[in-house]
């Protein structure tokens, strides 16, 4: 009887401890925002960003909460569909500010970054964008961080490697005719030309559904390669489908956001696609890919692009660590101060360096290594890591 009593006591104490621990974690909340396109042609990127941030939040929540000001707080992710537009992202910053969110992971598109920066600065919100715009970050926006290395850091080594691999003679760079397309396309064009490749640029109106005229125009110049640049995944997939229909037998490239699976699917398989090179915004160790997929499954998330998920999981981890060190999630200036002090060392992205000074005039870029993916003659050769550093 006494044994039974003791066991019951121990069980009660343990249960109470657990309840207290849970209650402690529930006592306070650390809110982190996610801004990106959750619908439309670029939805894959936005959803992947949300997935990544939620994975980072779940890591802390499963460990009892995020240490903040002597308490363990539940990390709450608040996402907002900015629809790949400047006005959507500006509205997102205000909406999140009204919910006391001062740290935002995202946005993902250049128009979104243009829209969010002034509003977030006014609201004293930290943002972590992944856009390839020339003014993605800058000294005039001290709370804006860049979560991936920009084209200035990777364009040259990637183009050089593509030229060597495929003997590129001529290329057409295709992108939407807005800031989201032109900013990266112009850097890509300059870099291809710098490598002595005959380069043309083609822009299309965002929202185009049938690319047949653009395809015919591209085919007139008979290029050896076509770079789909930052076209949203849906557009890139339709372009590839229509280019193959038109009889294009050359090389596809993509110095822009992730869309490899969509492109392979649209082509009707990896063999039909033939030759393809693409930039991986960060280099994810293949051994980690399974962990990323299973982390998404574990949270019941709709599957996102593993690279984008990894980028945002890393950004989320950094944001949450900075919030923890600052002791607050509602003071963006304090969080930014702590964020700048953190070393870049992520379990999925490996070690990186703080970069951005040469390209943007401010050292607020997470310089994790990038990667270059290769499909040659219908065979996937995987991703080669490329280190980046301030030039």
């Amino acid at each position: 009887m006494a044994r039974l009593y003791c066991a019951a006591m121990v069980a009660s104490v343990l249960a109470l401890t657990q309840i207290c621990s849970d209650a402690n974690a529930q006592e306070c909340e650390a809110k982190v925002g996610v801004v990106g396109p959750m619908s439309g042609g670029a939805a894959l990127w936005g959803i992947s960003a949300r997935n990544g941030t939620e994975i980072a939040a779940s890591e802390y929540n499963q460990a009892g909460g995020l240490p903040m000001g002597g308490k363990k707080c539940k990390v709450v992710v608040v996402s907002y569909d900015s629809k790949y537009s400047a006005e959507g992202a500006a509205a997102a910053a205000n909406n999140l500010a009204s919910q006391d969110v001062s740290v935002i992971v995202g946005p993902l598109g250049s128009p979104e970054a243009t829209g969010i920066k002034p509003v977030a600065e006014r609201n004293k919100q930290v943002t972590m964008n992944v856009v390839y715009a020339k003014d993605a970050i800058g000294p005039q926006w001290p709370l804006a961080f860049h979560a991936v290395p920009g084209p200035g850091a990777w364009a040259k080594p990637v183009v050089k490697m593509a030229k060597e691999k495929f003997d590129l003679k001529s290329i057409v760079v295709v992108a939407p005719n807005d800031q989201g397309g032109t900013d990266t396309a112009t850097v890509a064009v300059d870099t291809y030309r710098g490598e002595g490749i005959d380069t043309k640029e083609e822009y299309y109106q965002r929202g185009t559904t049938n690319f047949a005229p653009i395809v015919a125009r591209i085919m007139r110049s008979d290029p050896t390669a076509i770079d789909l640049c930052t076209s949203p995944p849906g557009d890139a997939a339709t372009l590839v489908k229509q280019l193959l229909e038109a009889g294009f037998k050359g090389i596809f490239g993509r110095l822009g956001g992730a869309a490899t699976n969509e492109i392979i699917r649209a082509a009707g398989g990896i063999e039909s696609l033939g030759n393809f090179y693409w930039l991986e915004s960060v280099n994810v160790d293949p051994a980690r890919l399974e962990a990323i997929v299973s982390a998404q499954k574990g949270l019941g998330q709709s599957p996102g692009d593993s690279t984008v998920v990894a980028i945002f999981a890393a950004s989320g981890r950094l944001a949450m660590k900075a919030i923890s060190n600052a002791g607050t999630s509602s003071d963006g200036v304090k969080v930014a101060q702590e964020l700048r002090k953190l070393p870049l060392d992520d379990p999925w992205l490996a070690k990186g360096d703080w970069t951005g000074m040469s390209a943007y005039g401010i050292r607020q870029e997470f310089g994790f290594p990038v990667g270059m993916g290769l499909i040659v003659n219908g065979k996937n050769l995987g991703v080669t890591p490329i280190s980046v550093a301030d030039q």
Partner: protein
Amino acid sequence: METAVSAGIIGIGLGAQYALLSLGFTLIYGILGVINFSHGGFYMLGGYVAFAVVSKLGLPYPVAVIAATLGCAGLGALFELLVLERHIDDHLATMMLTMGLYLVMGTVLVLAFGTEPVEFHSPVSGVWRSGRIYVPYANLVVLCACLAAIAGIYVLLYKSNLGRALRALADDRPVATALGLPPKILFPAAFGVATGLAGFTGALVTPILSLHPHIGDSILTISFMIVILGGLGSVVGAAVAAFVVGLVEAYSSIYLGGSIGALTLFLLVLATLVVRSTGLFGRQVRAA
């Protein structure tokens, strides 16, 4: 020379798609006086119904196209009967209601199929080639369907009793109603025909291009532009304008580039409206 021929073929292909899209849009305005902002939604819905029938039920593609057409027609007729009919004379209310329906459709499709483009390929594959000129066979199917649809709508409106009744209601509803024509049956029927056409187009065109839950936005824009150019409510105008827009887009995009091509289209519509405010084949704005 080959480029010019290619541009012409592409323009006709685009025109066929645009004609299918804009016929339903102009039909609803011509008969009911309603600007249907959910038109792009029915296009999307048609695509998704066809996709679901093929991929989830495993039925053949032609069955999927029929299912999409009938499904969209049924939903459209029901929406007109139960919701739109009560506010049919209030232009602002009908605009808001159709816009609301579009948002609801988009959200339901996101919940059902997710936000990403779905993998939906046309069963008609292969390309006819001669030098640099090429025509995907799937585009030929769309062109044939378009010509059949134009002929069908023409017969329906101008050679059938139903068409006469619909035109009578469009011209003068009080008199037509006094003569015994029942708008509560004919208006849902007209709305159903138009939305069925949008669903049919979605089922035919989305496997060639792409299918995602926000594709309706750009469909509405292009349909609206064509219908304005052709003359709001004019079936012939919509068909002619669709091919004009298709050809202008193809030639300007191929010779001047994608950005200038899009600009040329807007300038064309602007110039037409300055010279002829009712569009190419439009009449004085209807009284309804």
